[in-house]
């Protein structure tokens, strides 16, 4: 850990195309910065030593935050966590995302950190990732070749690794409008009241009353090299079986999908235990008396 940042050139473009020009020009030597709460720490540790830092906060387009029925939520790359937390649509329709935001880092960091940054850091412990995975979010990626939409699971390729090319940047996160009766939660195992996830579980339920059309989704953080969604769950809950059996199957499916490790934050055994109980707690909270 250094006191000083490594030397770099600072750029503050006003448009996305200007930012892309800079990325194109400097190739691998440049990095984009939104809130900077991960980047600057990495730079002080010399984990990342970019020669050019392209600050996106001057680009008006990237600050947009909208919700349109039918279209869903569009979150620009420089929208801070606290702005999102205070956005009505997030609280009313995207419960799991709201849970995650409320319990992320602390108030001061949330004033600066962004959702797009959280995803691009691609930490296995990213709190926003499991909620966005169960909401089928996509990221909008821009490059000199144009814009493309990337399914969120395809963004994460490994521990703190993404599929983004050196000339690409995330401009927004798109979250489709969920079914009207959707309910979702994000629960996380922590060492103290303010902590990154030891295990994070996002659960989503919609159209519960019609077993054939039922939507149940689960996604996790801190249990594998990347945040993961357990797709088997959807099929499991469409079976005509007693509730208890469905939950058992879902927990097994989750445990089959994940690969938790032991580290300074938790043992593997405790993570496995938390996956089990937090999954059950989340489903129980969502379904309450309806099952």
């Amino acid at each position, binding site marked *: 850990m250094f006191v000083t940042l490594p030397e770099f050139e600072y750029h503050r473009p006003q448009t996305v195309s200007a930012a892309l020009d800079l990325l194109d020009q400097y190739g691998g030597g440049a990095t984009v910065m939104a809130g900077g709460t991960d980047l600057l720490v990495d730079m002080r540790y010399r984990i990342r030593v970019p020669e050019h830092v392209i600050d996106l906060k001057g680009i008006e387009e990237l600050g947009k935050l909208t919700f349109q029925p039918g279209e869903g939520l569009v979150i620009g790359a420089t929208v801070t966590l606290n702005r999102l937390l205070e956005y009505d649509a997030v609280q009313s329709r995207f419960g799991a995302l709201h849970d995650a935001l409320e319990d992320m880092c602390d108030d001061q960091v949330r004033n600066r950190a962004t959702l797009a940054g959280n995803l691009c850091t691609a930490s296995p412990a990213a709190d926003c990732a499991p909620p966005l995975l169960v909401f089928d979010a996509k990221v909008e990626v821009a490059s000199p070749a144009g814009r493309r939409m990337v399914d969120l699971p395809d963004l994460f390729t490994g521990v703190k690794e993404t599929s983004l090319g050196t000339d690409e940047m995330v401009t927004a996160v798109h979250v489709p409008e969920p079914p009207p009766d959707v309910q979702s939660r994000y629960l996380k195992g922590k*060492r103290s009241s303010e902590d990154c996830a030891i295990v994070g579980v996002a659960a989503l339920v919609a159209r519960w009353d019609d077993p054939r059309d039922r939507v149940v989704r689960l996604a996790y953080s801190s249990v594998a090299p990347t945040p993961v969604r357990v797709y088997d769950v959807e099929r499991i809950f469409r079976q005509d079986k007693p*509730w208890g059996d469905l939950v058992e199957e879902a927990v097994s499916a989750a445990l089959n999908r994940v690969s938790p490790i032991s580290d300074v934050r938790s043992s593997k055994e405790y993570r496995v235990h938390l996956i089990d109980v937090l999954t059950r707690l989340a489903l129980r909270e969502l379904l309450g008396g309806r099952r």
Partner: protein
Amino acid sequence: MTKFKYVGRPVPRVDAMEKVTGSAVFTDDIELPGMLHTKLLRSPHPHARIVETRTDRAEAVEGVVSVVTGRDFPFKLGIYVGDRDVLATEKALWVGQPVAAVVAETEAIAEKAVQLIEVEYENLEAVFDARKAMEEDAPIIHERLGEYRTLPIFSPRPGTNIASVFTLKKGDIEKGFAEADLIVENEFSLPQVSHAYMETMCFIARHGADGNVEIWSSSQPPFIVRYLTSMSLDIPLSKIVVHAPYVGGGFGGKAGLNFEPLTVLLSKASGNRPVKLRLTREEHFTVAAIRPGLHATVKTGVKKDGRIVAEKIVYVFDAGANADYAVNVGRAAGYDAIGPYDIPNVEAESFTVYTNKLYATAFRGFGHMELHWAIERQRDIIAKKLGMDPIEFRAKNVLKPGISETGTGARLREDAANLEECLRRVGDALEWGKKPAKPKEPWKVRGKGLAVLMKGPAIPPNTASSAVVRFNEDASIELMVGTSEMGQGTLTSLTQMVAERLRVPMEKIRVASLRGTASTMYTWQTVGSRGLFMDGRAVLEANKDAESQIKQIASQVLHVSEEDLELAEEKVRVREEPWRSLTLAEVVMGYMYPGGNSIGGPVVGRGSYIATGLSVLDPDTGQGNPAVFETFGCQGAEVEVNVLTGQVEILKAFSAFDIGRAINPLLVEGQVYGGTVMASSIALFEQLIYQEGVLLNPHFLDYKIARMSDAPEDMVSISVENPQEDGPYGARGIGELTMIGMAAALGNAVSNALNIEIKDLPMTPENVWKAVTRQNPKLLERAKRYLKGE
């Protein structure tokens, strides 16, 4: 209520405005002309011989002024045992030990150049566990232990890793156990933890070409820094001035000597220019001293009626690579080994042991939080085995004023603190005997627990303080005391004492915020909860002296005897005829008669205090009187535990201390809240986690400390005030006490809630889950069944 105007009143802190507005000066705020900056190179190895150090590449960097290694500074440092290198010289003893330093024009240059120093190491076998370090074939960390300058009250064992051992013996231990109806033996442990004070350490030193040395330090004890720097570096004391700006929290970590000698030597090596050394938080975690870990074995013999008849204790303190201060932690924990209990037969050994980890120093509580964790958990375990109520079991055995004898054989004074009253008060507050309310979720459980505690200042028998009360022309006062202000608020309490006695409003009394050895009065150290008591006693003496000088002058002018005069409302007046008076302003610079003749002169009250009646404890048995006062108290808590996750939530936390008198109830409350949260944090979260000597959590991301949202919802401070005759206005110290019992109280509450016995800290969710899995798996199964809706 108090009969006083200032003492006992909840007045705001004298430094409040300065701190709230940001104008308060801390060491890092200070910039000197021509000041240089330094960065340290740290050892990557836990135990390694330094074969060769090459500095030429670092020296070649533009802006580098000097590059030094341990061999340049062949001095040994330490307050009690001189075992500490300025920079690692022959061997590096822990991962992170500074081995070399670069001084440069800027911090950035120093940081860059320090990476270019090349050190060749020869790795040695290391030892990380204190009990393994005591084994015969363990690698020796300090081969020269026998040669170190050591205070004679300590007993190092050269040729081993035992830096010191303290032995306590009272009665006949074998006879005691023979009389017992039940013998209970348990082992307890606590890991090393960090002080995590808000202000990271900072030092500035200037070693002048004329040999004069000035030091600015974020230090608790400027006078000890001066004394030890003089002794270790062989610089005459009279040539050293230590400035002590505000300190942003110390908790013992800034006691004794830290990096002051290094900074002085760096200045000397850099053309006598001033040098600043400031540590980042991350550097702190690998460079600065920490609290020792403890492994305790406690064996207790009790009668069926609950009387404790014998206790045998072994404490092993994990001091890390240096024990220069930690030996006294081990000693203090040794003489207070059994806590506030009257036990006729006692045998305790308290070892302070070297390991290849971060080195330990003083920490709020000075070994007492650690030892109370062990013995107060043990008390609950015994009470349960006896089928006795934990309060009744304790009440039967705790020290009672005027009657009981402590572990060191000192009879408790008649006006000693009343522990039983504290115990009952906390019991009442917790509604002891009444079952806790049922939690909302069926997989959560609640429990209550409490712990009693004691501590006095762990000080040399001749510890002293002094004070001066100096009047100005307008009868305002400069109060000169050596106590450092590190958040505890003693300066406010001392100001209240001056206002009370000299009848001057508090706002007319000033304690300079930038003080130091040259500009204020001597006090030993601001440690051990001693400031209010000892500096307070000196202030009372100074008050008395000033008052007598004022009366002497006024009696001549008013033609009455001094005894008939009193001070009131910034005047000196005749008690029976209050209209006959002089304003203090007329008197305190000397009185001038209308004709011009003057008498008296400026009033300067001086006061001194030295601890009296303390003994050098018997080297074989530890018997004697180690403390000028003992504060007793009780802390209790109600907790809710999530059986599924192991998470503990503190619902209520109550503390009762018999502090004799609360000079400022607001400050007492502040100490209680701070101590409660700090102890909760240590009980539930904090631990330095190592792998082969490498610290795995050297930052606040993974070294968890309590945030506001972890503080107990309901925190209450209960004041018990049985004054001590020789305390200032009857007061005893409080600072450290507020965290000593809380960890054990929480351990008792969590154990009670889960019907298990927790013996090791911290009680992290994972550790609690593991303990439940091992000791009460049925509880977890039941909780899981609730979850399934069965």
